[in-house]
């Protein structure tokens, strides 16, 4: 903290524009550049401090370069590699004719990184971009540095952007709460501001109220804390629900292909997980190709991987159906064994082809990061996965209900002989149905590559869960699969805070076992005398 502290004090000086002699700037700058070249974290931190406090004309340039790893230093001096690829002398700002020879990038550790961010943040209070000002105010809020109060208050006076203004007021409130000599009236106002902010950080700030505050203040503080905690509890429940839905959508993706092969065709495909794995590896291969040949397409890599994964997994599925499963219709348990064997072969084949280690699948920019929605933190990748799961489900439903192929599939499922008599090529439909189920598993693989390992073991970790979802939801009913997946996902996440991840999962498994006793054919089972032959 002390570094931060000093830095802020330095900023006061900077902002107040206390005149500094050109000579002293030059002298301190000398020290800073020597330190930058010293290859020591503490020297680097100190150098930043000096540069910023002495208002070196190139301070922003240097600090930003350091942050991006573009700052080079060595016995020959300090240079900045510009974004365009050229080189600039850090001291003079003049372009260098060629890449400097004896310089290495200045290294960062977390301490240096924090110093850099603080420097950027402090500089940011005056940034013309309101978003940067907001971020800077947020940094001040977290530091609660009393030395910055005058600047913050000055900034409030000039601020026109409402978001930045709110952030600045909160920063002011945070400083006022913690500062020992604040007037009680100001503190009351500060507590009110924090109560309105009402998040985890506000809570932490409120607790920083010094112990010698008046009883009335303490009372207000306690009330504000209670209000915030109550609100947070509600948000926490909502957040949990969100996690549950997100887990549910992952389960749905993993299980929905199975709902086709198992639910519609009655084929126990233990190699289903491997179809998911193949989808994930297809994503990897597509991304490798894009990285090597067309890097500008990277953000589209998943979109390109989707049809590829569908085709790869679907084709493997069709091959399995034609090669093995079609000889085993009417013998579900034998199918189970054969497909288990296939799953072992596929796993080891992938291990041989791609190596046993995890493969890196990158996230396109639109799937990285998170945003806040009220008190909810929503990560983009989870959001996209939920959307994707819904789309896949809708598409599948449409295929089954609306297309001629779906009609034929249902016909074959319900009465093979009759369908055959009506001219449907049942063998072809079997293969296509299985291919569809496998292809959908491949699509799931693309999505799962974003949140899980891309390794030969990927599929195995989902197979039991997938079966649970399908069986729980009721075989032969796609809606049942959705309800099953969401129920299991939410139940799992609601149990987790109380029972822990492991016990929660065990409890859920036991519940499913008991549930199947009650409804042997799942939540949405077909009834009727035809059920048992």
């Amino acid at each position, binding site marked *: 903290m002390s570094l931060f502290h000093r830095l802020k004090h330095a900023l006061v000086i900077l902002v107040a524009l206390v005149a500094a002699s050109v000579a002293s700037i030059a002298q301190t700058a000398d020290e800073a550049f020597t330190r930058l070249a010293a290859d020591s974290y503490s020297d680097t931190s100190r150098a930043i401090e000096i540069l910023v406090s002495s208002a070196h004309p190139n301070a922003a340039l240097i600090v930003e370069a350091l942050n991006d790893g573009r700052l080079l230093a060595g016995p020959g001096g300090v240079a900045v590699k510009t974004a365009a690829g050229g080189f600039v002398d850090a001291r003079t700002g003049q372009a260098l004719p060629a890449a400097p020879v004896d310089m290495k990038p200045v290294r960062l550790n977390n301490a240096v990184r924090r110093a850099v961010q603080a420097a950027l943040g402090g500089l940011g209070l005056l940034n013309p971009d309101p978003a940067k000002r907001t971020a800077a105010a947020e940094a001040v809020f977290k530091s609660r540095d009393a030395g910055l109060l005058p600047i913050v208050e000055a900034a409030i006076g000039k601020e026109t952007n409402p978001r930045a203004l709110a952030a600045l007021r909160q920063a002011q409130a945070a400083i006022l709460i913690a500062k020992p000599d604040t007037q009680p009236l100001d503190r009351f106002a500060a507590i009110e501001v924090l109560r309105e902010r009402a998040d985890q950080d506000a809570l932490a700030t409120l607790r920083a109220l010094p112990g010698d505050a008046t009883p009335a203040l303490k009372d207000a503080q306690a009330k504000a804390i209670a209000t915030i905690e109550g609100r947070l509890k509600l948000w926490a429940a909502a957040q949990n629900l969100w996690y549950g839905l997100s887990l549910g959508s992952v389960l749905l993706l993993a299980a929905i292909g199975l709902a086709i092969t198992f639910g519609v065709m009655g084929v126990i495909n233990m190699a289903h997980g491997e179809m998911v794995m193949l989808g994930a590896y297809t994503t990897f291969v597509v991304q490798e190709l894009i990285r090597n040949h067309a890097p500008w397409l990277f953000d589209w890599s998943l979109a390109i991987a989707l049809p590829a994964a569908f085709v790869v997994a679907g084709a493997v599925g069709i091959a399995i159906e034609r090669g093995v499963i079609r000889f085993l219709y009417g013998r579900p348990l034998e199918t189970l064994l054969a497909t288990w064997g296939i799953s072992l072969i596929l796993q080891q084949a992938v291990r041989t082809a791609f190596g046993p280690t995890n493969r890196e699948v990158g996230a396109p920019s639109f799937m990285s990061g998170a945003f806040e929605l009220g008190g909810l933190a929503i990560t983009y990748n989870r959001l996209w996965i939920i959307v994707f799961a819904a789309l896949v489900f809708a598409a599948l439903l449409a295929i089954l209900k609306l297309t001629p192929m779906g009609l034929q599939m249902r016909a074959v499922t319900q009465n093979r002989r009759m369908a055959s008599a009506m001219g449907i090529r049942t063998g072809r439909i079997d293969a296509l149905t299985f291919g569809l189920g496998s292809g959908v598993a491949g699509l799931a693989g693309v999505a799962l590559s974003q949140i899980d390992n891309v390794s030969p073991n990927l599929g195995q970790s989902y197979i039991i869960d997938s079966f649970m979802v399908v069986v729980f939801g009721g075989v032969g009913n796609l809606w049942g699969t959705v309800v099953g997946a969401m129920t299991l996902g939410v139940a799992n996440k609601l149990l987790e805070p109380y029972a822990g991840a492991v016990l929660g999962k065990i409890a859920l498994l036991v519940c499913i076992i008991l549930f199947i006793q009650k409804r042997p054919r799942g939540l949405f089972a*077909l*009834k*009727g*005398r035809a059920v048992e032959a």
Partner: protein
Amino acid sequence: MNAPVPGALTSSLLYLDGVSVSFDGFKAIRGLSLTIEPGEMRAIIGPNGAGKTTMMDIITGKTKPDVGTVMFGGTVDLTKLDEAAIANLGIGRKFQKPTVFDSHTIEDNILLALKSKRSVGKTLFWKTESPQQKRIDDILGIIRLADRRDRLAGSLSHGQKQWLEIGMLLAQDPKLLLVDEPAAGMTDGETAQTAVLLKEIARDHSVIVVEHDMGFIRELGVKVTVLHEGSVLAEGPLDHVSANERVVEVYLGR
């Protein structure tokens, strides 16, 4: 042969009253009432979907009715019992599609059906005594399979399987037999023989026969109940029933 038990609600052997059941909104049986007297043989006819098999399912405990009374022997409420208990009360059933144990020998099929204690312990330490062996031999004689007793049931022809299943019913020695389309898929000769066999059985058992084959029913010469859309349409001797306009309408379409 079965005197009504004292305190019984009815003297009939089987008594169905106001029975209804529906599957996913489809009413398979609606307000069905039916009475079978001890020693009676009854034929049940009706077009496809009339609820014949569902009725059998209800009597044998496979399906539970939504509403209605099903009493056996005047005192026992069949809706409260499961299949095994009902079978042990003395209700035997022969399925439409002959269902025998394909991987057992013909003799073992009869042995399994033979009236005896059905508990786990009793079967584990079972030893076939000579009276039981004699009964098995008798039945094998009746169903004309004595010379093939060591063959696997799976190797029998369709008609022989029907007989074997009737033989198994005999071995069970039930008070009431439910026979679902015994003549289906048989040659004319076999059909005639089956009718003779059933009449023989009916001498000391109550029998319900479900059948499509009018000739077969005529041969049996018993009271007929016509089912339609889950309830009784007509009842009486075959000639009487076949003269009924509604019955003709149902069978021949409008």
